[in-house]
């Protein structure tokens, strides 16, 4: 008898009696005998709770969390402060043990949360319409590319080299199977090269994908890129850091058609890479081409405001193979967390967090480049991350830093061939003391 299974052997006998069978095996009579397992699965015997805790703590003991260390690592996943209210509210089981809100009358909690989330994503990006979330920033970008190819009926995607390499890898894979060609827009001085874009773009270009702040943390000026893209009747897709939008020019201010990104930074734990959430917000023109769930406002039979899943004619359970995407489950609980984060920080808090990221990152860059041993890889405006070139490979530097419980930056040699390049991230969580210590330690390494 397992603790998660209430029916006892006595219950089972009574139920079998009602069914008219005498052995449980009769229930499985449609499975051919030669397919039935003759022995138990090779798994350990079930454990009690204390044994599970013991085992998990042993396993976890071989990990060092970002709270054991001081984290200067970003590159697409960020160590921001997570307000205490989040775990208390997101752990309400009325939220987390519910299914997709297919029965809206008993799902108004989930539905209203999504409606508010959509509103706030539109607020941050300036875009007209947001969906309810996608798996992560990388798949959101791939879905945006597919949407652009479908709506322009063109089959080439131009993607800037300054877009997160992880995102580009996922994009490459999705496009390969979809028979959409990808061309890479070279970079110049750490930003997308508009002249190169001008040469590459053509009548078959469905979309141009850029990221700002880009992978190097550099804030890209999209003015010229937007002009070139739209002159060619292509769509502009921009991947953005939601926290940066409290201070930086919004995608809509640039005339972006599809804004995407990863919203892990909005209150979600690092979780060793997932679950995070991808967001997507578009112009109203593209509303009915969007993938994923969307919540809309309506009225109930008594004329009260109520929320429902809407525009479902786009989705797989109605359109099957003609759907705009195959997505079904999304990242609802993560978008609840992102919502609580946005509400808790609010107008002033998000601006303050973004401001502190900016000034602390700049303070760190100044400290680290003061002696001349490290220099900025690019002389460009940046947000919370910056690329340095130092005296040694980043892996070697990081090996030393970890001895002092510091999690160093991302090695830029890996994807960009920038020798001795490292990408450091400084969020509002880092203190002056921690930054000074990092600078002092890095200064004595060679």
């Amino acid at each position, binding site marked *: 008898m397992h603790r*998660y*299974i*209430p029916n006892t052997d006595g219950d089972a006998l009574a139920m079998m009696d009602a*069914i008219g069978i005498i052995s449980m095996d*009769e*229930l499985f009579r449609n499975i051919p005998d030669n*397919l039935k397992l003759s022995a*138990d*699965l090779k*798994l*350990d015997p*079930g*454990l009690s709770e204390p044994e599970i*805790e013991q085992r998990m703590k042993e396993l976890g*003991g071989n*990990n*060092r969390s*970002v709270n054991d*260390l001081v984290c200067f690592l970003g590159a697409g996943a960020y160590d921001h402060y997570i307000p205490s*209210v989040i775990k208390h509210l997101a752990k309400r*089981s009325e939220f*987390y043990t519910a*299914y997709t809100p297919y029965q809206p009358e*008993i*799902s108004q909690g989930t539905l*209203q949360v999504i*409606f*508010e989330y959509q*509103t706030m994503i539109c607020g*941050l990006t300036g875009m007209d319409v947001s969906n*309810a979330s996608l798996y992560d920033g*990388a*798949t959101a970008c791939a879905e945006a590319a597919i949407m652009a190819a479908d709506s322009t009926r063109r089959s080439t995607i131009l993607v800037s080299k300054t877009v997160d390499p992880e995102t580009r*890898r*996922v994009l490459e894979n*999705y496009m390969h*199977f979809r028979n959409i060609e990808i061309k890479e827009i070279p970079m110049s001085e750490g930003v997308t090269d508009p002249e190169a874009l001008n040469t590459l773009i053509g009548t078959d270009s469905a979309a141009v994908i850029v990221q700002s702040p880009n992978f190097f943390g550099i804030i890209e000026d999209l003015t010229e890129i937007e002009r070139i893209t739209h002159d060619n009747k292509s769509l502009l897709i921009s991947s953005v850091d939601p926290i940066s*939008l409290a*201070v*930086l*020019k919004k995608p809509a201010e640039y005339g972006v058609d599809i804004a995407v990104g990863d919203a892990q930074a909005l209150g979600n734990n690092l979780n*060793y890479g*997932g*679950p995070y959430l991808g967001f997507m917000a578009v112009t109203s023109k593209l*509303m009915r081409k969007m993938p994923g769930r969307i919540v809309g406002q*309506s009225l109930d039979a*008594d004329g*009260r405001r109520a929320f429902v899943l*809407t525009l479902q*004619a786009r989705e797989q*359970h109605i359109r099957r193979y003609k759907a705009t995407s195959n997505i*079904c*489950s999304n990242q*609802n609980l993560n978008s609840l967390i992102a919502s609580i984060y946005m509400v808790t920080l*609010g107008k002033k808090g*998000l601006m303050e967090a973004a401001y502190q990221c*900016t*000034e602390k990152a700049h*303070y760190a860059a100044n400290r680290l480049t003061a002696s001349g041993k490290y220099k900025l890889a690019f002389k460009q405006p940046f947000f919370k991350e910056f690329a340095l070139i130092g005296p040694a490979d980043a892996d070697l530097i990081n090996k030393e830093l970890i001895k002092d419980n510091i999690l160093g930056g991302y090695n830029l040699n890996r994807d960009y061939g920038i020798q001795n390049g490292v990408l450091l991230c400084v969020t*509002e969580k880092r203190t002056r003391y921690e930054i000074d210590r990092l600078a002092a330690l890095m200064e004595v390494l060679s």
Partner: protein
Amino acid sequence: MKKYDKLIFEISRKGRCAFSLPESDVPRVPLEDLIPSHLLTKEEVDLPEVSEVDVVRHYTLLSNKNYGVDTGFYPLGSCTMKYNPKINEDMSSLDCFANLHPYQPEDTVQGALALMYELDNMLSEISGMTRVSLQPAAGAHGEMTGLMIIKAYHENRGDTKRTKIIVPDSAHGTNPASAAVVGFDIIEVKSAKDGTVDMQSLKEALSDEVAGLMLTNPNTLGLFEKNIKEIANLVHEAGGLLYYDGANMNAIMGIARPGDMGFDVIHYNLHKTFSTPHGGGGPGSGPVGVKEHLVEFLPVPIVEKSGDRYFLDYEKPLSIGKVKSFYGHFGIMIRAYTYILAMGAAGLREASQKAVLNANYMMIRLKDHYKLPIEEVCMHEFVLGGLKEETNGVITLDIAKRLLDYGYHPPTIYFPLIVHEAMMIEPTETESRETLDEFIEALIKIAKEAKDDPNMLKEAPHNTPVRRIDEALAARSPILKWQKE
């Protein structure tokens, strides 16, 4: 309790705040001195201003308008809404798991890598496959990944004309949609009356252009595909591969394995079979298992072990590449791993047995009151076709809405598409006989109400936070965000 109908934006008051950040301890510099002003926004960020207690009450009151497995019985067919053990949540929240950066040096995440490696082994054993990739984010994403692997396999053999995937008409909507995402054409084959594969239609559909067949077994009518071995042989003889949609895996754990049935690729739904919560629509997790001949095509990275050390292996030249950032939904993997530890082999087997017992018990008790299209022992779920006899125009939707008044989440309705007025009921093993009896009584009572007071049903629900909602209005004039009046 107070009726709450406010949006967060409507309780916002200028000047209120709920955040708590220390004052910056680096010298404050005007933003314009750090970032050129043409790159800065001219608009203030549009977010509400509320206090901490406002935040807490708002979300608490919204949660009260929700219904979860912890609230009550949730017999949603094909979704396996079993109880989500609390220890799973505790383990996934441990600092040593929840707060790891995906790019940390491997030396600092050996515990996380070990967990992934072991979970791969466990899931391989349960399904009878060789290796499992934990990267896919959800069921549909797993389908997409599995189909990419199938396509890569044929392409690698130089067999490039296999551009079609066969999908039965009883399949989940994600099956054909996923095939389309991967650039396949879809051949839909008619099912036999009981939703099983019609052998004749299958034979006609097979050709050297077919890359594979997607199958759910037990199928969406809750019936085991008796001819599965023969189906596998036919598909393999035609040069195709067999894909297993693992949505219904809860029926056969420890009893039979897709790998032994002849399937080449399978996806799991950890958020169904392995008790991880659905989160109101995600995050899920959709690991993909494959047989030996497909291992080299799995997404990168995969966790490998060398001596005592675990590492992320990217050196897979034939890999399809990446399907999402990083390594998958690690937070969900922890919960599923914890669940398998708690259950063990015997527990998983008991879960499937009792899930099937519960379903058959309900089916037997309900068939005198509701239409049962196929009289056959079912697996973990069964499908009814509305009321036994047409009664005053009461339809499945009315029955579902009336169930809300009785405090239940209704079954999946109008699916599978091949059953008229379908109600797909999946009780799972975590429900007691009394719960099942009470639900059955409610359904019997509703059947009686259909005769006595049909209008009450057609207007149901009556005592939910909101009544029936005008979905057509929402789609016709979309209001997709709140706007200041």
